[in-house]
């Protein structure tokens, strides 16, 4: 028993076929432990949303093709379940919080109904049981004592309240795994912190594992136990929060960290990574990062580096891990 509730192995996902084929995810290994927040960090187009959508079982096939890999949730192999079996795990076992609550909540349905319909469907509760539970949920997400929220429509709530409702919907069936896809990106900075605190509190209270998808390193630093950095459909570095933020080894991770503006770097020029993220139809051969990498050597465009263990729990995929790094 290793305590992992989600274990992704060698996941490969592509879109389209022939000339137009785009390999969005090219062999990802990722796991989330019980009660852990594991962040998947990358720029847009890196494959992080495709990965999380695939775990939810919401990837439209076609155009998406899952070429290989396994996704294990507890003892279930998700990719071999039928569509109906997967539906039953969604919301109940594996839940998801989305980026923009104002778009992801149904505008024509009262908040109460958006919560209770799940309880009635997944847990077979009757109307009054579900209503009682919905009030408890509101309390959990910090909207307690405000039962008026249940009879409100989403547009009648503030942005922060909407995201709390969104989280409430996700946790109402006590899922073991929560996928949070940029849940704070659309919010004001002051609200971001509140929502992050809420997510951490709920993780403690409910003991669920969280796969946290983000491009915002500051947010990731605040919330994560472990961090995996994804670039061009592959994990390039993975480790504990301290590993990644204090002793990053992959050039991409190092450059990403150098590009965060913070008080300590005031007055110095902010680093930006030269070049741009390649799109999935034209990933460079070899290590996909080599055209932008300051350490790149001839071999980098020839072969793809595999994940190399640096120390227990920390690994990176780069041929030049031993090279001197100067900023």
């Amino acid at each position, binding site marked *: 028993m290793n305590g992992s509730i989600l274990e992704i192995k060698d996941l490969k996902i592509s879109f389209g076929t022939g000339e137009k084929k785009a390999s969005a995810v090219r062999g990802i290994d990722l796991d989330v432990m019980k009660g852990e927040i594991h962040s998947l960090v990358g720029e847009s187009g890196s494959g992080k949303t495709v990965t999380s959508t695939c775990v939810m079982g919401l990837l439209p096939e076609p155009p998406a093709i899952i070429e290989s890999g396994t996704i294990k949730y507890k003892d279930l192999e998700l990719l071999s379940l039928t569509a109906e079996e997967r539906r039953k795990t969604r919301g109940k076992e594996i839940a998801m919080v*989305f980026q923009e609550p104002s778009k*992801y909540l149904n505008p024509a349905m009262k908040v109460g109904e958006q919560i209770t319909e799940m309880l009635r469907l997944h847990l077979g509760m009757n109307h009054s049981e579900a209503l009682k539970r919905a009030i408890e949920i509101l309390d959990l997400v910090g909207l307690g004592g405000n039962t008026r929220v249940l009879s409100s429509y989403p547009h009648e709530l503030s942005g922060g309240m909407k995201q709390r409702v969104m989280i409430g919907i996700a946790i109402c069936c006590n899922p073991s795994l929560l996928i949070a896809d940029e849940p704070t990106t659309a919010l004001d900075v002051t609200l971001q912190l509140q929502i992050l605190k809420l997510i951490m509190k709920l993780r403690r209270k409910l003991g669920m594992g969280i796969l946290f998808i983000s491009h915002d390193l500051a947010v990731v630093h605040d919330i994560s136990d472990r961090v995996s950095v994804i670039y061009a459909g592959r994990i390039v570095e993975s480790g504990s929060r301290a590993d990644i933020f204090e002793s990053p080894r992959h050039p991409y991770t190092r450059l990403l960290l150098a590009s965060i503006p913070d008080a300590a770097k005031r007055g110095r020029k902010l680093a930006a990574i030269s070049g741009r993220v390649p799109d999935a139809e034209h990933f460079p051969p070899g290590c996909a990062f080599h055209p932008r990498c300051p350490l790149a050597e001839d071999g980098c465009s020839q072969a793809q580096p595999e994940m190399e263990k640096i120390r227990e729990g920390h690994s990176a995929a780069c041929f030049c891990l031993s090279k001197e790094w100067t900023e």
Partner: protein
Amino acid sequence: MKFLLFVLKRLLRLVLTVLIISTIIFFVIRVIPGDPALVIAGVDASEEEIDAVRARIGTDVPLGEQYVSWLGDIARFDFGESMISGESVNKLIYERFPLTITLAFMGIILGIVIAIPLGVLSAVKRWSFWDYFGMVFSQIGMAVPSFWLGIILLLLFAVRFPIFPLFGIGSLKHLILPAFSLGFARAAVILRLTRASMVEELSKEYVITARAKGLTETMVKYKHALRNALIPVVTITGIQFGYMLGGAIIIEQVFSLPGLGRLFLYGIYQRDFTLVQGGVIFIAVVFSLVNFLVDVLYSVINPRIRIS
């Protein structure tokens, strides 16, 4: 309180609408050639006889005076007497209106019953047989004039296969063919809109949430998406209903139904000024009231629009 204010505002608008329409109709009907006094007195009448008729029906006084006194009448909800038959216009409308409104209601209900399910099905199963069927149906519906459809339906289902009566009133059966001719074109419009609206809603983000919640596809489509998709459909259906009152005039002629349409049509032929004026204002008021009801209904089903 807000609602009361809303109603008051709409009433004021209604009064303004009636005032403008009454002015237009009053002068337009008098500008077109034809004099009711000549119709009543007949071709052989002498000047004196014609003048006598004019004096009786009130067209001998100056236009402005006629207009003001008529406005005074409609302010008291009195449309006066028919110039030709001398009967009260209110009574004539009251007798004919139930048939026309029943016809319009049946037409719109037939339209809804055909259009909404087919539109939803077209959107849910895009590019399937049902979608193409719906497209062909709405193309035909929009292209075919309702009077022609009425004649064809009569030939088919009253003459060739005598399932329905050829003319007359008295039962619901008499109204099915006319209601269908009237509703067919409306169904075409409602169908297109339902399909477009449903397709749009199905691509929205909250549908992804609904799936992520593990809801069944039936719930995702018919509980979450459909509820939003029907919001614009209600408005359009309401407006279509208003148009049906006008469309009924032609259909009543095709099916020889003694409704409002025929009443007003003969009024126009005979230059029965008071009847035509009363009829136009009556239709305008009904149209406005229908629009008002649609707006109220819209605010009920669309939580984002609250009457203010």
